[in-house]
């Protein structure tokens, strides 16, 4: 994996290159042993949610960051994943693990349906079109009570039957299995992002993100590669939806299908640094605690909505000072302190 890669200019400093893997090892070991020390389920739950947001934002980053297409439709995929596996489990007794895969395949189909017409649009028009799709889907889920014999319960949401500790039902009393499953999913999506980034597709997506016309002159088919990125992104986002349903054992449209969720995924990537591998992780570590804290301490203040103001202002400040994301600051800081160098890109 090349998350922690050495800048080419530094190749002659081979002895220092070895140290650049040190942060990865430290973080890896820490993350693996956290459940040994934390027994409070609420805190474990928070850790799992952090991973979950990082995972989904990494999914979004494949299309939103790499190919630069601002998709607001990603809650459609998470909802599709969550509802598909839950419906198959509740009404047909199919294991959520299989339902997860089916949900992913549905997301592939839907991403093609959304992508084919909307990828003809550019910039803000694409963003607007995906907002329309996302809102429509949420409204549909809220309104539709029943499809044939399958009750979706509209706005009330779906409650999954509790089966206790069961791998086949994807349900656990302890938070620890959820923690490790989500960790594996997160490592998986970063690995896949890394493969894409370093491949022909990655180069093509970066070209499309920067200048579609110029990329076409070099033989790049933008529609094809954007759609491919959207499909991969949608598939994995749907898997994240199923995981959420199994973690909460309850899903409702105003949560898993909401525009707010889609916007959160976008903000996380932008704060951290979109188009990079570590951006969504860094963004999550900033955004999730910040949004939890503002909600805890400010939402009961006499001025209504002050928590959202604080959150919004923070995001604006980050974007104003470093449009490429906090990742760039961290890179400078780490290379200065640990390597006494200015050019090393530790967090790619």
């Amino acid at each position, binding site marked *: 994996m090349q998350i922690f890669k050495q800048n080419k200019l530094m190749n002659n400093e081979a002895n220092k290159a070895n140290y650049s893997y040190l942060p990865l090892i430290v973080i890896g070991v820490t993350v693996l042993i956290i459940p040994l020390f934390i027994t409070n389920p609420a805190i474990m739950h928070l850790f799992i949610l952090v991973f979950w947001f990082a995972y989904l934002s990494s999914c979004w980053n494949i299309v939103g960051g790499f190919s630069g297409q601002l998709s607001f439709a990603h809650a459609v995929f998470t909802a599709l994943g969550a509802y598909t596996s839950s419906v198959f489990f509740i009404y047909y007794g199919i294991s959520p693990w299989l339902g997860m895969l089916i949900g992913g395949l549905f997301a592939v189909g839907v991403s093609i349906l959304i992508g084919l017409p909307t990828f003809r649009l550019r910039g803000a028009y694409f963003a607007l079109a995906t907002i329309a799709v996302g809102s429509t889907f949420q409204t549909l889920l809220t309104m539709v009570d029943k499809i044939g014999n399958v009750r979706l319960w509209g706005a009330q949401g779906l409650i999954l039957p509790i089966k206790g500790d069961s791998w086949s039902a994807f349900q656990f009393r302890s938070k620890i299995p959820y923690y490790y499953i989500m960790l594996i999913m997160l490592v998986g999506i970063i690995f896949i992002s890394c493969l894409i980034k370093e491949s022909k597709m990655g180069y093509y997506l970066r070209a499309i993100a920067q200048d579609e016309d110029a*990329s076409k002159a070099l033989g*790049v088919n933008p529609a094809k590669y954007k759609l491919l990125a959207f499909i991969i992104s949608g598939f994995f986002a749907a898997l994240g939806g199923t995981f959420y349903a199994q973690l909460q054992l309850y899903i409702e449209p105003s949560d898993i299908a909401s525009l707010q969720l889609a916007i959160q995924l976008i903000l996380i990537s932008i704060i951290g640094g979109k188009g990079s591998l570590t951006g969504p992780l860094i963004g999550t570590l900033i955004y999730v605690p910040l949004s939890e804290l503002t909600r805890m301490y400010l939402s009961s203040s006499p001025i209504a909505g002050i928590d959202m103001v604080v959150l919004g202002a923070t995001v604006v400040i980050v974007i104003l000072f470093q449009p490429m994301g906090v990742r760039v600051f961290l890179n400078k800081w780490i290379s200065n302190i640990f390597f006494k160098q200015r050019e090393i890109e530790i967090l790619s």
Partner: protein
Amino acid sequence: MILKVQNLSVHFGKLTALNNLSLEIEQGEILGLIGPNGAGKTTFFNAVTGYVSPSSGKVFYEEKEITHKQPFYLAQLGITRTFQATKPFKDSIILDNVVIGALIKTNIVKEAKKRAEEILNVVHLGSKMHKLARELTVSDMKRLELAKTLVTEPKLLFLDEVMAGLNPSETNELIQIIKKLNKNGITIILVEHVMRAVMSLSKRIFVLDCGEKIAEGTPEEISRNKLVIKAYLGEEYANEYAKNRKN
């Protein structure tokens, strides 16, 4: 004959940008395209390379019809172009800019990198490979634009004002590079306002005004053509050109 354009017209609403233009280009030729601003030169490039859909007319490349085909498809056939306002991938390094073009011939990034490095040396950008594209000077930017298209191994290359904004020595250097490319078998069509470059490079010149062809011939003939002098070159240039020829 590598390219044949038949009665090509482009209308934007009621405006006729290109009117019934026909043109043929032989394999290995350098064709100059000149004319005043708004004559339709860039529109012609856009229409032939797939960036604008022509209103009527047909385009053939190696006897095969390519009208209304997409630019990336044409690039894969061997037709590519540069842009008047250079279009570098600004946030990528020079090498990666060219790698993107090189990937048209291979799926392996490593191979593409090797190929890109070769081309960057041809246009004298090898030493700046790891710089960000946004940090380049105008002259380097033009050369990067050229390198990006060259790495796709074109057979037919459209150059849109690659000399604009260069100083005389940079212009000479680029003229030499273009001559070398042509010798290696690339057919070139160039739009250019720098007359020194057009006159020394082109075997044939094509003059456009208000979307129509007003003259066609060797550089010598064009410089003496009354219509061209009136519409574009001006008396002064014509006299000077004639004087230089005598010397």
